[in-house]
């Protein structure tokens, strides 16, 4: 498993800071091209956002700049076993956004048109009848929704392990418990030091440090506005199977998924407080209570649910809600962070984008909107 950090010096072609899914995906794609990669993870792979998210694999409802990437990622998900040697628990079903009111439905219709104008037709508007058919347990007052067939969900922790093992088997050196404390560029080489006294060198660094990436970006010359957030989730005890797809709402923030074992995960973007130094999070019960009310409003059966676990994962949120992905103005530095609680599905493709940028200087997919310097006025 973890390669112990007992060497005092180590050189590689690329150092990846952050062993979450985006870092591991970059490491994997680079390793596939024969690049010598070192991954430095301060806790253990999947400890934060990557391992504790809702596992939603969706094109549904993406910010417009993300749509082309998401569509490309969806293709990779359909064959994820080929990429990482494990199906990651991926179930291709669909994802649905529920419209509770006519106003909600109008919002969805407007969005659908926007997307079609750009040439994408994966989001389909559905009426009340179709909604009831797809979600028999939904509150009958709901008027319709939007569905993307082929979206679904996967097991986040398993996905992290799969990317990690595949990258490692292709030669990537992955160090856990290796917190990066200093980065320094000298004579075309990055020198990276970790808290346990080790030192790594490489001409290229990938900054995929999640909620901590803003600090590295700042240190290394890119001012970004990344806010650490503690996004709250709840999981219930088992309920009889009533949905097998991932559901979101339109007029309120809610995401909802039932696992095969009957437990239900309720998420939805309410925030507690995060402490980046101690990994500790504080829950905000007003937000959880609102999530509880939302869940019951949309699925009345949830009245019977019992919560067995509430927690918050530390994630990095960008002010504009889309990631920082692309080259830095500093030489030999590339960013892949700020996925703002919706990075899971994008991870297989973003690693490829990073790899293409490192090796060829360009990528087929449009990433201008994700520039690191977009916050400079």
């Amino acid at each position, binding site marked *: 498993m973890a390669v112990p950090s007992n060497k005092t010096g180590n050189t590689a072609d690329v150092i990846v800071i952050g062993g979450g899914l985006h870092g591991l995906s970059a490491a994997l794609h680079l390793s596939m091209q024969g690049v010598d990669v070192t991954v430095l993870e301060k806790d253990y792979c999947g400890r934060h956002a990557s391992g504790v998210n809702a596992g939603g694999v969706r094109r549904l409802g993406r910010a417009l700049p993300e749509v082309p990437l998401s569509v490309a990622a969806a293709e990779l998900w359909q064959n994820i076993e080929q990429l990482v040697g494990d199906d990651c628990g991926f179930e291709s079903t669909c994802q649905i956004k529920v419209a509770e009111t006519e106003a909600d439905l109008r919002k969805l219709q407007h969005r659908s048109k926007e997307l079609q104008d750009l040439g994408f037709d994966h989001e389909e508007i559905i009426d009340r009848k179709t909604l009831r058919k797809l979600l028999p347990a939904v509150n009958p007052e709901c008027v319709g929704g939007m569905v993307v067939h082929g979206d679904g969900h996967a097991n986040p922790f398993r996905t992290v392990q799969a990317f990690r093992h595949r990258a490692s088997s292709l030669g990537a050196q992955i160090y856990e418990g290796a917190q990066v404390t200093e980065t320094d560029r000298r004579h075309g080489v990055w020198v990276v030091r970790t808290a346990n006294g080790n030192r790594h060198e490489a001409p290229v660094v990938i900054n995929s440090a999640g909620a901590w990436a803003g600090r590295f970006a700042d240190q290394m010359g890119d001012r970004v506005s990344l806010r650490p957030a503690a996004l709250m989730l709840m999981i219930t005890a088992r309920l009889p199977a009533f949905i097998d797809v991932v559901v979101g709402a339109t007029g309120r923030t809610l995401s909802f998924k039932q696992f095969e*074992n009957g437990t239900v995960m309720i998420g939805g973007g309410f925030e507690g407080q995060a402490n980046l130094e101690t990994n500790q999070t504080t829950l905000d*019960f*007003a937000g959880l*209570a609102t999530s*509880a009310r939302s869940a019951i409003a949309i699925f009345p059966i949830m009245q019977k649910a*019992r919560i067995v*676990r509430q927690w918050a994962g530390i994630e990095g949120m960008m002010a504009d809600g889309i990631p920082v992905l692309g080259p830095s103005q500093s030489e030999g530095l590339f960013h892949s962070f700020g996925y703002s609680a919706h990075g899971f599905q994008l991870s297989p493709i973003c690693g490829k984008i990073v790899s293409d940028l490192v090796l060829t200087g360009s990528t087929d997919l449009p990433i201008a909107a994700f520039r690191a310097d977009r916050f400079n006025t």
Partner: protein
Amino acid sequence: MSDGLDHDLVIVGSGPAGMAASLVAAEHGERVLVLDEQRQPGGQVFRAMEKNDAASRPELGDSYYAGSKLIRSFRRANVDYRPGTTVWHVSSEGEIGFTQDGEAKIVKAGHVVVATGAMERPFPVKGWTNAGVMSAGAAQVLLKEAGIGIENAVFAGTGPLLYLVVYQYLQAGIPVKAVLDLTPAENYFAAVRHLPAAILSSGKLLRGQKWKRRITRSNIPFLSGIRNIRICGTGAVNSIEYLVGSTWNKIETQNVLLHQGVVPNINISASAGCDTRWNERQAAWTVVVDEWFRSSQSRISVVGDGAAIGGAVAAQHAGYLAALGALERLGKIDTTIQTKLARAHAVALRAELRLQPFLETLFRPARHMRIPVMDDVVVCRCEEIHAGQIREFVGIGCSDPNQVKSFSRCGMGPCQGRFCGHTVSELIADIESRPVGEVGYFRLRPPVKPLRLSELATLSDLPKVD
């Protein structure tokens, strides 16, 4: 409340530690809220005291009835006591989430005293999930609270509580099929070096001896030096097998009562961020506290058996000290007064704990009774995960209990790891030859008791978290 707090002190648990703490705090004029999920005060050790009297129920014993004075004082004290409330969250900032009459509430305290007491140590043996298997503690609850005895049960395990319950059964005239004593023979030798200190606690020691002597002199088959047990039955118990030397023997019974000690119930403390520590002699996870029972979280004190096992009398003295510590921290008394008031209790507490090294060494369950050797033994009762499955996950690289949990659901059921956490920590440590303290425990999160979504939905008018 003008200071933004609902209460100065919130105490979770109305056992001896909680009651003692609340009395001291109330005497000093603090606004005290006491929350307990049981319907009457007394915790487990003094359970149902208000229902029982020594005249009609003498079998419950003197040390039980010794608690009645404290309970009477507690009832008279100026505290807001709410029985039947379930605490599901305590935060490091002094927020407490609890359910009362089906409604969820959150209050903010200046200081929290967690006095949640102990619970049975897991007893992972073959067949322990069969219907008809209960803990000796459960038998004692039935005896105290419901006046119910379980006839012709086989008691198995080790520890003073095991002997006490059998003794109480004898006194009450409830027939016992057999007692299987699994105290490891080598423990007697190991415990000898703690005898000198133990002699100073001769009262307690003699009391324990009295119970055992009464049992061995009765006609209850009392078998010592038992090395292992297997509980048999398909669904419900029909017999128990026990290993003496290298021979397995069988006793037919429909009820088995297991006990191999108690361990602190650390779920609330750990989920609030209090540091915990593995105590090797006790083979238990304990909460790290200072001499005033303050934890690593400045607003939270953890006291009594809920911090580390010491028994009811120790818990009472510790409760006084914890309250004094909280009062000093809240600026309600100065350190001079604090030291003065504490003196007698600190001395009494030290005296009470003198017997612990001896008891802990003598009644330490054998390693294979804490860490199942056979793969088909259930470790996680809620999710029905076996030892073999956990070994598999460790084999593929899960090196801490949380990774095992993510992969297997072990610890994700309603008991939230209470009945498997110790086993999992020790099992991983055993496979990887690492210290248990380094392996760690499940990362615990609220709610520490399952919370109905419909109850959470009723939450309103919340205090602002600063």
